[in-house]
């Protein structure tokens, strides 16, 4: 017994020495050794709590020390530590209880080793009353794009306050941003359970369900969140509208109804845009001014916009933000401004028009303009491209989007350009950016490719791909994603969807690969990329062309379904745009059988480079001419 006691004393001394040296991990490891020998070793659990508190994780510390107290309820040191920890996170009642309890208990034989000399005891613990900062740190990390850190902080907060709704939602969103959609779903379900009548978690859950390919349930969630949303100026509701274009064709009319219902109910009438004078300044309102999907389309345009003022709404800053800052005529940080101040600043600048690129969760804005000046608000791109952005007066369109734009905007409100967009390849200089040999030549069989974004892989998409596979015997399809990791629910869902068409044995999922900005590994291993429907690809379509991979797309019934066609039109490959499903299959089959597919692959990058798609100056000139003609005609 004495030997065991001596051993414990030595171990506690060693743990204290490591703590004093700042070797917290070493101290924790030593505690684990003690627990391995005796899982009921309360002093070891207590010391783990002390170390966890030093690491800043008070929630974890509490759980260790509470366990120690349960095992050995008669010693003073455990409630003393619990009193201190409770006070440090603002749990005053608990702190009071434990502090009182500590005063009536006997000291542990190793008391000096268990309680640091400077630990407040008795009523002194109340000099140390603080609130947990994990939630604030989590939010800051999330907005800075440091999702792993956000997860760590949110989890620390939840260990202290397991019922904290905001931490649960933030934890889920961080996982979602990292592609852990199934984990995100679990946290959001817990959050909706805590506060069933709060719109945020319901809507985020809708987004996650979309990412898992569960479109029907996602629509229900998005509609529910719109119904729960009472604030007419709510960004949450507006963002729910952004998600509706992801919906399947079957659900799309219902989602449009939901959008219209919400607009009629909540959106305040916006005053008519006024044209005071010809002002060539273009305002750009942007909530994602950092690395993201729109950057490759926006930066080349900004190179040629000589009079652009960028109103940055997001807090996150990275190299892209700095690039935009250096290229814009003026760059205004507006993230922290209230709506009235933002409106007034824009009105003060009096831009000839305001292009609203907003498309994000909580940072998007849709100005109302209360003063004399109301600039025309113009909608252009988004992910997914919305049909009609809240508050948009006009839309930039092209032949590819004309059919959709005609439905939602008056003819004179469509700025029709020869091409919808322009694009620049996000070169990183890695060797893999060279165009690879045609896989068909190596394997003798055609490999179609597809992007594994479950928001876009609907039953219609799978049906179309299955038709292509049936039309091209021996061909297979390789579905890729950014990391090559496939969460089980997604892999199972994809398998099931293809199994319904009897082609599951010809479907492969891309394996783990070097993560790069562009999925170069996928493009090196496929012959033809099959686009999705009813929402088409955007960056991936342009990137595939750059990598020598032909793309087959189907023009859709919504603006988000026309982007693939717009890119191919601009790249001079309108012949790869299908108007119907049959066309789509025929084009894919033709390309698969094309004898000159290797020549197409070898020459595609040069032809894309020389095409209108990469002619940012031509795009801006056409845009400028259209803009001036608009501004010269008073509305």
């Amino acid at each position, binding site marked *: 017994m004495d030997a065991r006691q001596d051993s414990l004393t030595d171990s506690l001394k060693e743990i204290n020495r490591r703590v004093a040296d700042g070797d917290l991990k070493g101290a924790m490891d030593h505690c684990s050794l003690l627990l391995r020998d005796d899982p009921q070793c309360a002093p070891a659990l207590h010391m783990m709590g002390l170390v966890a508190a030093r690491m800043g994780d008070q929630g974890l510390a509490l759980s260790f020390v509470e366990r120690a107290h349960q095992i050995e309820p008669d010693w003073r040191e455990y409630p003393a530590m619990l009193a201190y920890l409770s006070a440090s996170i603002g749990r005053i009642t608990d702190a009071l209880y434990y502090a009182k309890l500590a005063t009536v208990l006997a000291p542990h034989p190793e008391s000096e080793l268990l309680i640091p000399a400077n630990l407040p005891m008795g009523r002194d613990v109340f000099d140390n009353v603080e609130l947990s900062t994990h939630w604030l740190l989590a939010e800051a990390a999330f907005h800075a794009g440091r999702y792993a850190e956000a997860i760590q902080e949110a989890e620390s907060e939840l260990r202290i306050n397991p019922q904290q709704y905001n931490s649960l939602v933030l934890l889920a969103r961080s996982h979602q941003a990292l592609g852990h959609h199934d984990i995100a779903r679990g946290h959001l379900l817990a959050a909706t359970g805590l506060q069933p009548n709060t719109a945020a978690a319901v809507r985020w859950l809708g987004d996650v369900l979309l990412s898992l390919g569960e479109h029907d349930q996602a629509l229900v969630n998005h509609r529910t969140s719109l119904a729960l949303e009472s604030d007419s100026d709510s960004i949450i509701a507006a963002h729910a509208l952004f998600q509706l274009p992801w919906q399947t064709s079957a659900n799309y009319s219902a989602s449009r109804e939901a959008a219209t219902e919400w607009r009629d109910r909540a959106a305040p009438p916006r005053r008519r845009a006024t044209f005071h004078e010809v002002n060539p300044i273009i305002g750009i309102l942007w909530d994602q001014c950092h690395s993201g999907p729109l950057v490759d389309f926006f930066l080349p345009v900004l190179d040629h916009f000589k009079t652009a003022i960028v109103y940055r709404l997001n807090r996150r800053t990275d190299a892209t933000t700095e690039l935009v800052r250096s290229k814009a005529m003026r760059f205004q940080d507006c993230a922290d401004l209230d709506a009235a101040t933002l409106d007034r600043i824009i009105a003060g600048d009096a831009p000839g028009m305001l292009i609203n690129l907003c498309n994000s969760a909580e940072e998007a804005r849709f100005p109302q303009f209360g003063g004399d000046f109301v600039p025309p608000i113009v909608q252009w791109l988004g992910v997914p491209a919305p049909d009609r952005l809240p508050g948009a007066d006009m839309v930039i369109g092209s032949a590819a989007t004309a059919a959709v734009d005609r439905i939602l905007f008056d003819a004179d409100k469509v700025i029709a350009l020869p091409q919808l967009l322009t694009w620049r390849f996000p070169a990183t*200089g890695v060797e893999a950016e060279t165009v690879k040999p045609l896989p068909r030549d190596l394997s003798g069989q055609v490999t179609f490719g597809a992007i594994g974004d479950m928001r876009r892989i609907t039953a219609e998409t799978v049906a179309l791909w299955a038709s292509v596979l049936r039309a091209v015997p021996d061909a297979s399809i390789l579905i890729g994603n950014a990391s090559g990791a496939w969460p089980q629910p997604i892999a199972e869902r994809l398998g099931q969807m293809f199994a319904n068409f009897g082609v599951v044995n010809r479907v492969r999922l891309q394996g783990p690969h070097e993560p790069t900005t562009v999925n170069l590994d996928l493009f090196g291993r496929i012959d033809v990329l099959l686009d999705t429907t009813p929402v088409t690809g955007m960056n991936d379509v342009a990137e595939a062309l750059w990598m020598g991979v032909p793309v087959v797309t189907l023009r859709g019934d919504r603006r988000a379904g026309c982007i693939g066609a717009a890119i191919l039109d601009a790249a001079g490959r309108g012949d790869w745009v299908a108007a119907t499903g049959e066309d789509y299959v025929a084009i894919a089959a033709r390309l698969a059988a094309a004898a000159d597919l290797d020549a197409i692959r070898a020459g595609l990058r040069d032809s894309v480079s020389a095409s209108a798609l990469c002619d940012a100056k031509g795009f801006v000139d056409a845009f400028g001419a259209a803009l001036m003609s608009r501004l010269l005609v008073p509305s």
Partner: protein
Amino acid sequence: MTVVAVESDMRAENMAAFERFLPAYAELLREYVPQTRLVENLDGSCDVEFRGQCLYDTAGDGTTGPDLARRMIDELKTSPRGRIFATPFGSSSLDQTTSVYITQLLKQGVDDGVTFLRVPNGHEAYHLIVMGMGLGYHLAEALKFCEPFSICIVEPNLDFLYHSLSTFDWVSLLERRKEWPWSVSLLQSDNAAEMSERMRGHCRNANPSAVDSTLTIASYPNDIMSAAQKTFAKDAHLIHSGLGFFSDELEMVRASYFNLVAADNFRVFKHSPGTRAGLPAFIVGSGPSLDQDIEFVKANQDRAVIISCGSALGALMTNGIRPDFQVQLENGEAARDMLVSMAKKYDYSGICLIGSNTVSPQTRALFGEGVYFMRQALTSYAMFSPGVEYSLSNAGPTVTNTGLEIALRSGFTEIYLLGCDLGARSPDHHHSRFSPYHMANRTAEYDAAVTFIQKFPVRELGNFGGIVFTNEIMTWSRQSMEECIRGNAATGARVFNCSDGLRIKGARPQVADGIRIAALQRPKAEIVAELIERWPEASAFGFNEKWHATDWRGAMRRYADQLIEVCESNPDRSHAFLHQMGLLMIPDHYRPAHFEEYCLRGTLFMAVIATDYYCRRVHPPEKRGMFQQLAYAGIAETIQTMLDQADWFFDHIDEIHTNVALKDALVSWTPDKIPSPTV
């Protein structure tokens, strides 16, 4: 091209030089892993290669860095590109002392057949600003070309700095710092605003009198560097703004003497680090946009401390708003007269004066409570300041930025700027319509009307978008505010700019209508009284003893002898003269400036700037030596004149206080018209 081995003797020697002179950069470079490669051209010069693209040989036609550098210098020989040329001082911007000196000098020069060119007749530049170090080829050529005394290098890309260790002789360059730290400074940043501010700061610290002919070169094209270069050129005038002048310094010593030495009914402002005021502060200026926000101030006057700045007092009192504090900055009688005339109509009781130690001594009597802050970088500061914590580093040029610093230094963490326009939306509409500036036709009810003579020729970005008209003093005031906000960032204070004027970095634009301020939990008067009681009473400082214990005149005389010695050494190069004078006038890099340095240097800076301006434009060039000699002799004479004036001032300080004619004479003092105290 071949890849260059990174390890070399040159690199090791350069690293050793960095470790000695710029250790922070040495640490950065030691661990740095570049993304690019250093490659060697056929001619032995180097280039930096990244993904097949070269820094210098952008077109792949074999162009090298040295080729480009030589080409740049050839262009600079015949082009003013990259130069900052100062405009000559007009008589309105010179004080009496400098004006007399420069008029005599020019007259003598012209009589001797000298004419003056529009631009200097040489390629020298005192300050060389190198935008982008690259591999150092451009810097090497520029050093030979313009023979600078101070070099400021900014490089956005650490890769280039890293590679330059293998291509450029940093050792020789950095060893210049042995003599003088401002000979070479280095900044690695990819932020255009930071670059331009640091470049300006370098020039101001090195020698503000040497802006004329400053050369900025860019070693390679870069958007961020271009933006920084433009901002630097636009704001170059700020480098030599606010240097002061001699008679003004004496006048402020006089005011301080009567405020601090001859009185005892005041407190001394002291910073309150770590304390929280517990309520918001409104900093109220009398800019035109105050008219829009006056109702907001009225509605919230019981929920925030109101700090009125200068003439805003009239606008507030006219609207029935009694501020808690009135900030006064300027010495001289105009500011006091305005307060005196307004006092005939309005009662200032309950308002606490927070004034500079240099405000007119009659100001204090108008207010119930009085607090003085020490205004830095003035003669009176060196004479009386009990410590930096009793001073404001950004007091001036306007009372508005002073008000902001007072709030930030007093523990306010929620600060709203109202009517702090620093300009106007319309160049013709200055100040609030309630301010004394617009009372000219309402003298029957209020006789404090004053005239505003400043113009707003400069256009700057507005706080609420668009363009605002302003001038150099206001942009300088803005710079002070920005520095102040940045310098107090650690306090967590948030500054909201509700004024429809200049955009102020660090102050968030905020429409006043959207602000909701919570009601206070206890009477505001109690909180204000606590704030005032934090500041110590005058009796704790012993100003009187300090005044009488120091030999002010002797210190000034000894200093003047050193300056005259430089003039008599008659340096060949005008920039050498600037440099030697600069070393004596700006000791700040190794110790705080003394009373005598503050007192003489403002006017001397002006004289030296004007001297250098004309000396380097003398035509024909062979007359330059003669003209320089005349100039240096003139400056020595000017120094002697100032000494005489200082003697006269110390002899008659008590009489100047009560004799208006003597006070006026202080400004227009000339050795041949020494005023008599009996006047």
